[in-house]
């Protein structure tokens, strides 16, 4: 039961990691768009 709980938690944290990475990529893209507008 401890192992399965750990696996579940790992899955959750991995999914969160994926979302954070995507958001970071998008924010970087948006930042670059703004920077281009300024230039």
């Amino acid at each position, binding site marked *: 039961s*401890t192992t399965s709980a750990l696996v579940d938690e790992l899955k959750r944290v991995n999914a969160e990691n994926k979302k954070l990475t*995507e958001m970071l990529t998008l924010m970087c893209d948006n930042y670059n768009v703004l920077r281009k507008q300024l230039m």
Partner: protein
Amino acid sequence: MDCSSFLDISLDLNTNPFDRNFPDKLPKKEVKVSTSADLERKWLVKDESASELREELNRVNSENKKLTEMLATVCEKYYALHSHLEKLQSRQSPEMDQTEQPTKKRKQDTDELLGFPIGLGSGKTENSSSNEDHHQHEQKNQLLSCKRPVVTDSFNKAKISTVYVPADSSDTSLTVKDGYQWRKYGQKVTRDNPSPRAYFRCSFAPSCPVKKKVQRSAEDPSLLVATYEGTHNHLGPNAFEGDATSQVGSSTVTLDLVNGGGGHRLALEKNERGTMQDVLVQQMASSLTKDSKFTAALAAAISGRLLEQSRT
């Protein structure tokens, strides 16, 4: 950890009552011993995998923390740059502030919709799906990229035209019938003219930016001066209707439409209609000339007519 006792207990639970009655069945006991060893090995493997899982979990957690910090930094920089850009834009075009206000409000709404500061601050992103985020970001990008050209475009297209319309001096309504529907939003008395000036917006506002000012002429009080600002981005309600009332109502309209931006559209439409009629006539003529029976009948009719004329 004392695993053997646990294993023994579990094995005892699986024992068959018939085995107790016959303890001399050694092969079964041997089987039991081998099973307990296997489970012990599995348990150890599980224990190792659990520690590995914990390590992996710690690693991913620390990575998450770093990502959250990076995201927060990028967001801060993004919003700083964004506000800087807005300041620059407002400095460049102070006269367009009123036009930009709704856009700013809309953008703030989009930011609120995105909910990035909340999601990033706490590092919790479970409630938002990545697809929705992506879609919202795309919308935001579009909004940001489209904002300036849209404002500039509408600003450049704002044409001003003045129309003089004869009106009864007793009529104080300041109404100019021009085929469009208007909403009056204000009236004021100006210094240069004793008659008040009425302000109208197109009934399609805010999608249509056209405004109209109507005031009786100071030089000739029998004339109403209507000043139009902007170009209609739609057709007038009575523009192409063939009913008599609209035709009567648009006697002054023609003047206005020709001077205003809508006139170009009307002229274009008329030209298109004329071209269509010409094309239809040409098609009919060509189809008739290709028809040999029609040509023969026409020739006979003409020759018969000529013969009759020559007899008389």
